[in-house]
């Protein structure tokens, strides 16, 4: 029995299994992204109005020419196929709403802003959340635990809609340490990153506390204590890796969401990030941009989830590289 289990563990981590795992996950990811492209396009086509809705009426033959230029005169399935081929070959089409600029350029302009803010927010969230959650879990029932839990619950319940303006008011308008809004100075990422970081740290603290408490109740921890390991060694060397799994799971989608820009935060602080395009493209029937942003988001989700799965397999050999899931 023992032999079987250990073989399974070993096979779960072998390079061959890892390659097969990666291959199947990448394939699944491609399916997901194509699915996202299809749904976006079909929903957009279903929506009333079109790319030229905001403009004055033009003579029939000009309208037809405009449509022909952007391929809108072809049957819907053909249009969808063309779009998918374009995205697969990275030939981003020009779109009627942004003449002269391809959607690739628009995303390449917005992404660095969103990514900088998002990455900083993620680091702030981890730096605040993991110690707070771990401290609460190590000393259950104490003042530290209560304070951390209350702070985390409050953090989850405070929408960025509220926190953003308050932070802008305090640090921007009153203390004047940073610009309250806009993207002019090198340190303009601080306030939006702080807003998002505080909110995400609350989720991380909660997950960390739950994960560590559950792990500390396990039998191998009792064994570690029984053999005389110090409390610090028990927590950091034995429990920590396993306790991080819930946080890790949360980080996949969270990172993708943060890096593509939070719409509320970017609009509160008036950042020229990606977030605005998620709304604007859909409202303006910018088919190409909407599909590009949706596909980009899906790509990040798939990518980060894959990273998380690999990290999970390395942290917990029992999970290993299982296909499917």
């Amino acid at each position, binding site marked *: 029995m023992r032999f079987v289990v250990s073989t399974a563990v070993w096979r779960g981590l072998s390079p061959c299994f890892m390659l097969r795992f990666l291959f199947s996950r990448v394939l*699944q990811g491609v*399916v*997901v*992204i194509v*699915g*996202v492209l299809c*749904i*976006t396009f079909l*929903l*957009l086509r*279903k*929506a*009333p109005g079109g790319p030229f809705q905001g403009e004055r009426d033009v003579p029939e033959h000009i309208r037809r020419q405009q449509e022909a230029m952007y391929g809108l005169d072809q049957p819907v399935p053909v249009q969808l196929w063309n779009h998918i081929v374009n995205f697969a070959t990275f030939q981003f089409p020009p779109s009627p709403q942004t003449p002269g600029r391809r959607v690739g350029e628009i995303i390449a302009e917005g992404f660095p802003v969103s990514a900088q803010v998002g990455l900083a927010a993620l680091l702030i969230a981890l730096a605040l959340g993991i110690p707070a959650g771990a401290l609460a879990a190590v000393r259950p029932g104490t003042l530290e635990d209560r304070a951390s839990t209350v702070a985390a*619950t*409050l953090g*989850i*319940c*405070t*929408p960025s*809609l*509220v926190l*953003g*303006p*308050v932070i802008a*008011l305090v640090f921007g*308008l009153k203390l004047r340490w940073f610009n309250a809004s806009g993207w002019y100075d090198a340190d303009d990422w601080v306030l939006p990153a702080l807003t998002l970081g505080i909110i995400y740290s609350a989720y991380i603290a909660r997950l960390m506390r739950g994960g560590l408490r559950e792990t500390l109740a396990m039998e191998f921890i009792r064994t570690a204590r029984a053999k005389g390991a110090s409390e610090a060694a028990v927590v950091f060397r034995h429990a920590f890796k396993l306790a991080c799994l819930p946080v890790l799971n949360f980080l996949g*989608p969270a990172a993708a969401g943060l890096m*593509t820009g939070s*719409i*509320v935060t970017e*609009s*509160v602080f008036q950042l020229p990030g990606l977030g605005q395009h*998620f*709304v604007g*493209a*859909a*409202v303006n029937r910018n088919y190409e941009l*909407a599909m590009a*942003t*949706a596909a980009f*988001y*899906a790509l990040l*989700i*798939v990518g980060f989830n894959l990273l998380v799965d690999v990290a999970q397999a390395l942290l917990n050999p029992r999970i290993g590289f299982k296909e499917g899931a």
Partner: protein
Amino acid sequence: MSTVAAHPSPWRLAWQRLCRSRAAVAAMLLLVLMGLLCVVGPWFSPYGPNDQDLNLRAVPPSAAHWLGTDPLGRDLATRILHGGRISLLVGLLATAVAAVIGVGYGLVAGLSGRRVDALMMRLVDVLYAFPFITFVILLVVIFGRQFVLIFVAIGAVEWLTMARVVRGQVLALKRLEYVQAARAAGAGFWRILLRHMLPNVMGPVIIYASLTVPGVMLLEATLSFLGLGIQPPDASWGVLISEGAANMAVNPWMLAGPASFFTLTLLALNLLGDGLRDALDPRTLS
């Protein structure tokens, strides 16, 4: 069989455990109070939600206007209570929509064969990777900015996790002997689904639903903040908060009032969700 009556039902036990948690009881009281305030409160207010008093524009809280007025001279307290009706209604109805879709989908996926299950869950994966805000906006855009459709749109986004939770539960349940016994006794797909699965997934569903309500209310607030939700002059808490945020530097009470109602309600819902998890999930009993 006579001893069965002597044992309290699992639901009663869960309720007793719930009532033992001080935080959960406080949260329930707060929610009931909030609901009553929003439903009954506006009838006792001397002002209508859209009544303007142009002599009293943007005044701070006073005896006449407990939470102040906005720049159009409307009483904020009345507007907050009115907005609360919409926000709470959206929260509850959207969660109900999400729960119905998610539970139905999860049950069918979990009980069906492997192929159907894989196909159905792959669709959930695709929707998961969808930027939800684009999805909601597209739904709102397609169906028009009608009040009813806002929560249908939100519910249509929030069911995914519910479906995963339910499916996972069903996969675990369907291997149990009592299900095989039912199948051996000739119970069909739908009978097993409704009679043997549904009651047993309700625990996790209730827990998850109580945690979905705050998420849904946040989403409604986000939509209203972006101008895609409730349309003026009607107000939800999201609308009032975004108006408050815009006027915050000059009239801070415009943010303080609606934000504290909103945050308090979310806090109570989260505490209730935690309490329900402890009460319904025997594993976490400590």
